[in-house]
């Protein structure tokens, strides 16, 4: 940190403190300390001038500039998916499809992923494989070696991979209990490496057994529901676990997880668990990440504006006709987006008034748009007769 180094006296530059944002002012105090005394004040004055120049002017069309600044690089984006750190069966959607997914605020995203950070002893590699096993959602399918229907004695025999059970810290009787919970109509017995299922009712037992044979595979056994793949990687000197599939709520409850840094790319999940402010930040981070990955350069402030627009109603809304467009106050603007007749009919039923405050409406009726040079008005009003 530069904090211990030389720093200018705050009191000497009090006049500039109000003119600059706090962070800029404090950085300036540090940076300008190396300058000769005579030039410090001059530098501050220049800084204020530059700062004022960099502000958006009244009437600046920030929304449209944002749209252009994100839209233009969007046309250059490649549709490439990248492979998830060497796991070939996992393609991660990036680029334009992912961007559209985020901006539309889709309910189900194509590749949900988590980055799980670990607490101290574990982040150095302690019990990493145990942690990985605790995270991954395991289903019966993965423990069954063989299923056979014994027609003579009306039984279903499940041969279990005992070795694998041990790896996941499970025992036969535990499995049998889980199965019992899921299938109340059956009786499960452990017989060495077999689990034997018997229907309790006498009603068409064979049909019951065949149905059980299929259903038993999908029974959830251990781990965190929804986490399909787990991949521990070393990142900046500590072990981090990447997952395919997401379940933020349960992962945060695990005692070895560092909840303050752990994240998911499912924005709506973030919203439901951590709230809209976190979702806003998640949108910014995700969009910025996509654009960076494509080797493009977009100012964060454009992305911030988009994220703010998507969240300012207190809930995440997509940039779609069901999302923020629906919230536009102008009938004409909404009608010009999609399905015009429906919007006109609805507006007329409600007796809506379009006060023609925004850009689009005024373009439509060929009036000056209230942006830039069209914004200033005369303060003095002429007396109406």
């Amino acid at each position, binding site marked *: 940190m530069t904090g211990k180094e030389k720093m200018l006296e705050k009191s000497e530059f009090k006049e500039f403190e109000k003119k600059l944002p706090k962070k800029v002012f404090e950085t300036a105090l540090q940076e300008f300390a190396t300058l000769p005394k005579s030039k410090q004040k001059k530098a501050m004055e220049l800084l204020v001038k530059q700062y004022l120049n960099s502000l958006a002017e009244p009437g*600046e069309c920030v929304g449209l500039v944002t749209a252009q600044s994100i839209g233009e690089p969007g046309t250059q984006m490649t549709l490439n998916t990248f492979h998830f750190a060497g796991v070939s069966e996992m393609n991660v959607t990036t680029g334009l499809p992912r961007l559209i997914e985020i901006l539309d605020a889709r309910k189900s995203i194509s590749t949900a992923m988590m980055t799980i950070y670990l607490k101290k002893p574990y982040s150095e590699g302690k019990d990493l494989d145990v942690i990985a096993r605790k995270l991954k959602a395991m289903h019966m399918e993965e423990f069954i070696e063989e299923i056979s229907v014994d027609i003579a004695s009306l039984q279903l025999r499940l041969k279990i991979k005992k070795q694998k059970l041990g790896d996941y810290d499970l025992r036969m009787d535990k499995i049998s209990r889980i199965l019992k919970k899921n299938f109340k109509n059956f009786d499960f017995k452990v017989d060495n490496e077999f689990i034997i299922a018997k229907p309790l009712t006498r009603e068409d037992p064979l049909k019951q057994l065949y149905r059980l044979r299929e259903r038993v595979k999908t029974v959830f056994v251990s781990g965190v529901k929804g986490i399909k793949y787990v991949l521990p990687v070393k990142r900046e000197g500590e072990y981090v676990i990447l997952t395919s599939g997401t379940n933020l709520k349960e992962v945060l409850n695990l005692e070895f997880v560092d909840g303050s840094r752990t994240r998911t790319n499912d924005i709506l999940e973030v919203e439901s668990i951590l709230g809209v402010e976190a979702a806003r930040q998640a949108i910014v981070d995700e969009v910025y990440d996509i654009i960076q990955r494509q080797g493009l350069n977009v100012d964060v402030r454009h992305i911030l504006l988009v994220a703010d627009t998507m969240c300012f109603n207190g809930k995440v809304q997509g940039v779609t006709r069901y999302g923020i467009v629906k919230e536009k106050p102008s009938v004409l603007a909404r009608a010009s987006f999609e399905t015009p007749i429906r919007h006109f009919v609805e507006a007329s039923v409600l007796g809506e008034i379009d006060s023609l405050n925004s850009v689009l409406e005024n373009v439509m009726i*060929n009036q000056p748009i*209230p942006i*830039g040079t069209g914004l200033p008005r005369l303060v003095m*009003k002429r007396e109406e007769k």
Partner: protein
Amino acid sequence: MAEVYISGKYVGTVDNAKEFIDQIKTERRLGNLPIDLNIQYDEDYDQVIIETSKGRVSRPLILVKDGKPLLTERHLQQLEKNEISWNDLVSQGIVEYLDASEEENALVAFYAEELTPEHNYLEVAPLAMVGFVTSLVPFGQHNQGVRMIQGSKNQKQAMGIYMANFHQRLDMDVHLLHYPQKPIVKTIMHDISNYEKHAAGQNLVVAIMAFEGYNIEDAIIVNKASIDRGMGRSTYYRPVFAEELRYSGGLTDKICIPDKDVSGYRSEKEYRLLEEDGIVFTEAVVKEGDVVIGKVSPPRFLSAIEDYTLGGTSRRESSVALKHGEQGIIDMVVLTETEAGNRLVAVKVREPKIPEIGDKFTSRHGQKGVIGMIYNEEDMPFTASGIKPDIIFSPHSVPSRMTVAHLIELLAGKVGALAGRYIDGTMFDSEKPEDLRKELLKLGFRDDGSEVMYDPVTGKRYLARIFVGDMYYLRLKHIVANKMHARARGPVQLLTRQPTEGKAREGGLRLGEMEKDTFVAHGASLLLKERFSSDSTVIPVCNNCGLIGIHDYRKDKVYCPVCGDKADIRFVEVSYAFKLLLDELKSLYVHPKLKLKLKY
């Protein structure tokens, strides 16, 4: 156990796929199955796919057995003596047609010398891998694939002599090259297709160099003297038609010089070229607006009221005149009848098109470009022997596109022109570039084709030697004169009062959604308003009920359809499109009210 599909439908399984396929193929060769049936074995999926459907592209290959082609010397002799034909070879199972899927299982040799026992097929000729137009590209084996496709597409748009009886035909949009030449560098396909009978290009001297900057971005510099001597000159033919239609009630159109009392009469000047029968004379020089075929029609069913009120059968002018920007010379007049038995007059207009800045030219390698500048002969650089290039081509067009054949053709053309012979550039079977270089050296030139050149302005020698040669250039049918268009004012659409669209209707150039956004982003509010004011109208609005009022010009009175004469009517300036929107809302039983407020 392989699954068997016929034209995409599952039909069953076979135990031994390979044996099954061999059996099918044998039957096909015996003529028991159609020759266009193709069979493929997909090893990854263990499937046998049989295709019989339409629309597959297939190509002939010579069958090979034990490393020896079934096509023997004897067959070739018989073919030469016309004792057998191609179809005999196909029916005897010597030549087979393979589609893309069966080709997957085939190992095909390029040349007979390459054959090994593993090969199943031999190319009839390596050239057969590409289509007809692509095989017209010389030295194509040195080009990148994409350029071959683009080169082929360009060749299809070249001017030439498309039919020997062109002067009797009435085709639309015809360009005819005045002096087509046989290419010096040709392929076997030029001979096979009788290309010299309908050639579509000219052998031009091309220098590859940057010169004065007018050949940047694929443009070419052209020698004015070359154009004066006929390089790239062409004629454009355009027919116009007029038919004497028959209407109900015994009324018909009439082709004649319209009377002055016909409604819509143009002016005497515009009819001046018509002879008594109402048709122009041949070799008349016509300009835009001149009537070519005079015609009057009976009044339309619902035309203006005065047609009826004035009594009598007033007729309507419906002559055919040259459209905006058109001109030319009348080439031919044809009088005939349509299928329905109506009299039909067709007039062919001819217009010479001399190459000008903006016209498009191309070599045969997808290296198209427009003329960037035309220089007088004395302003063109020259070689030591005094040769001045017809075209100066930019060197920057070559490296990124990797059209090596373009350069080889330039060299080959030079050899051909100097040695007085045609060069064979057939793809995969061409004369060797090394041999051509040796020959060029023997002819007294540098073997790399480069020559010393001199600056036309200072007369000084250029420090670099310039690659000069001879190559076949094609003039493409995209001509600026037919495309150039601008408008300051002009016709508007009836419904929206916005400017019409398209060159033919003298339309405006649209300032679209994204262009609008740039104005908005700049905050140029009033500029945007002005740009979009093409349909601006002043409408009377009732301040009381908000409806659009009525302005009766005859009585010079404004009133509201609801509130009547006493209404407080204000005039508001809006786009006509908005007024139309209000009308359409009213037709939807929606009452749009305008609330007026003083802006200032």
